[in-house]
């Protein structure tokens, strides 16, 4: 049934039933999980590294302004940077700031960016924490302000500032909070370990977020083989005495963890094109974000660490860590047995959507959910890139029901209007099309390039429109001035010709001059 034919209001109503039944989304792939290898050991905090490199750009938005400079001493959890209206950056350790300089950071461009380099002193002394006292009765705005102070961003990967999403949700009267625990990319298991080890914190965070949003219910979505996780979460919810928190299992088809696909699975509805989940009355947050919300509001702790999976065939002993933001990846790799001999590539993120990094002294940031080390066998390609044979496999697996082979052709030949029409902006860059392509065309790279080009062209066309308008307005103004001057000239000429009224005009002019005296208190002789 084409549910987008329903009115938005009725869709919002239908969305209240989220989780009662599960639905399907189009396409998707059954991928081998490869998660067990990193779930064998419990999660630990690695030892403190020698240096922590904290990038000032870890969130969606502008680069944060640093508040500290070289030589200053900082405490653990102290704010060291802020980007209004986006998120703040906090120091993960107590120690001394060595420098504020450009260093490699985990950015898809591979470019270095401004970072605060901190040398820890080993004391791990916290700054004075200010939790929200009695959060259950605090105003939602207080909760949101605390979330903002603690620099919380979405830990599912998009690092969108949580306070902004929550405020937006409040404004739009959200009824359901969805916690996304269905970690769908292969190899990544950090969310699963978090749910296994700290279900209480997740439930606590869910309750805080629900209060902040003004939502009625919480639906936690997990993958269908996570039986132990479901038990743990349900028990935690019951212990907390909270009603209206349900744990729903969704079928494991990549990419069911994508926000839009998850909503389609839980409700059968599609987020309107160009819209957001809050249009349907729902907000989706990662389970790790919920845990961070609990830390922030109930304990006053800012976001300075996260669960991260270090795994892949290129790592000797894959496992999960609870790592501080700013820890270099090399430190984590050393803590899990170092690389294997045939390691060939490092990827931040999963194998389908991750970005490769060139050096392993890149630091952990708020968005880093996984470090994947791949071997030569993993990335070997027997066939070079061939032209598209239009087999249609990509369209069969696309979860957004796009036509990747058409989009690829249009981007390649620069048909940007058609790219818009065929919905490139709806692409979630999941990599399903790339995976099945027999011609080994790097479709995700093409679409990332295409989206960048679209944005650039949109900005450029805005700028040219503005320039054109300003030019035309200026031309119009100059023309008007010319016309007014010409009219004034003709009027003056008329007046000169009119000899009859000349005497009157001279008398009026004298009267005006005398009036000026009365107004300003001076005579023309005084001036």
């Amino acid at each position, binding site marked *: 049934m084409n549910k987008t034919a329903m009115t938005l209001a009725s869709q919002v109503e239908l969305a209240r039933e989220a989780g009662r039944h599960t639905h399907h989304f189009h396409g998707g792939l059954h991928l081998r999980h490869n998660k067990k290898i990193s779930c064998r050991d419990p999660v630990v905090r690695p030892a403190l590294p020698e240096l922590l490199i904290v990038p000032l750009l870890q969130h969606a938005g502008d*680069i944060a302004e640093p508040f500290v400079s070289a030589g200053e001493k900082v405490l653990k959890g102290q704010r060291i940077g802020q980007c209004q209206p986006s998120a703040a950056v906090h120091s993960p350790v107590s120690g001394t700031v060595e420098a504020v300089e450009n260093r490699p950071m985990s*950015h898809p461009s591979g470019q270095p960016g401004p970072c605060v380099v901190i040398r820890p002193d080993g004391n791990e002394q916290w700054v004075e924490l200010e939790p929200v006292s009695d959060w259950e009765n605090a105003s939602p705005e207080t909760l949101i302000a605390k979330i903002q102070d603690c620099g919380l961003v979405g830990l599912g990967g998009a690092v969108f500032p949580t306070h902004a999403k929550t405020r937006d949700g409040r404004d739009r009267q959200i009824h359901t909070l969805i916690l996304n625990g269905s970690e769908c990319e292969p190899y990544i298991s950090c969310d699963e370990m978090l749910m296994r080890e700290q279900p209480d914190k997740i439930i606590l965070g869910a309750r805080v977020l629900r209060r902040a949003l003004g939502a009625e219910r919480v639906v936690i979505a997990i993958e269908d083989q996570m039986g132990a996780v479901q038990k743990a979460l349900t028990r935690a919810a019951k212990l907390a005495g909270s009603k209206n928190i349900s744990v729903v299992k969704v079928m494991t088809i990549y990419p069911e963890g994508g926000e839009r696909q998850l909503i389609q699975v839980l409700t059968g509805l599609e987020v309107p094109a160009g819209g957001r989940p809050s249009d349907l009355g729902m907000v989706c947050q990662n389970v790790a974000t919920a845990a961070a919300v609990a830390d922030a509001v109930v304990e006053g702790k800012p976001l300075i660490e996260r669960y991260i999976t270090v795994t892949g065939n290129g790592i000797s002993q894959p496992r999960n860590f609870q790592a501080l933001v700013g820890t270099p990846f090399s430190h984590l790799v050393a803590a899990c047995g170092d690389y294997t001999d045939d390691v060939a590539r490092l990827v931040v993120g999963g194998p389908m959507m991750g970005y490769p990094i060139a050096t392993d002294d890149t630091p952990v940031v708020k968005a880093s959910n996984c470090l994947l080390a791949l071997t030569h066998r993993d990335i070997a390609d027997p066939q070079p890139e061939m032209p598209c044979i239009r087999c249609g496999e990509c369209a069969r697996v696309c979860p957004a029901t796009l036509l990747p082979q058409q989009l690829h052709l249009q981007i*390649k030949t620069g048909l940007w209007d058609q790219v818009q029409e065929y919905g490139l902006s709806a692409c979630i860059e999941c990599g399903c099309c790339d995976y099945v392509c027999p011609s080994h065309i790097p479709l995700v*790279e093409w679409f990332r390039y295409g*989206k960048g080009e679209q944005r650039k062209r949109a900005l450029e066309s805005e700028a*040219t429109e503005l320039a054109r308008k300003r*030019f035309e307005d200026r031309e119009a103004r100059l023309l008007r001035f010319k016309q007014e001057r010409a009219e004034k000239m003709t009027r003056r000429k008329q007046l000169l010709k009119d000899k009859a009224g000349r005497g009157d005009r001279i008398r009026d002019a004298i009267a005006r001059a005398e009036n000026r005296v009365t107004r300003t208190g001076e005579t023309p002789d005084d001036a």
Partner: protein
Amino acid sequence: MLIPILVLMTLGIVFGLGLGWAAIRFRVQSDPVIERIDALLPQTQCGQCGYPGCRPYAEAISREEADINQCPPGGDAGIRALADLLGREAKPLNPENGELTPKTVVVIDEQRCIGCTLCIQACPVDAIVGATKLMHTVIASECTGCDLCLPPCPVDCIDVIEVKPGILRWRSPRPHGVQDPAVPQ
């Protein structure tokens, strides 16, 4: 012999009338050519093409007085787009008018500015604000980089700076693709 001639004549008349009616009934409203040419020009309003602004240049192109390769800020991409639109041949950029340079904006050094308003009068898009004997300043987001304000300034207080996209404006690079020389890169 007569009948086939009459039949063909009748068919011709019927189809002709039908086509004429369809041309009126299904007419597609499209912008006049000048608007479409102007939409392809970069709106820098620099005058390097020899015309006082992009709109006059567009009008000259439509009257076939000007060639389509006169605009340096539009570059080769602009020439190709014009060639596609008008069905004319794409030529290389006319080097007499200048080269395609990276995007620049100007900035006024406030220490040296004397408030003469000559640059304000020169700017074709009103991107400079100020008044007589008061500070002038350039609104960077509106500056098109046309450099028309540089010559009139009597104290030479206007500097040209290149706009470099920072990490926030970074875009994914174009993949190499299967080598195909026919496709413009």
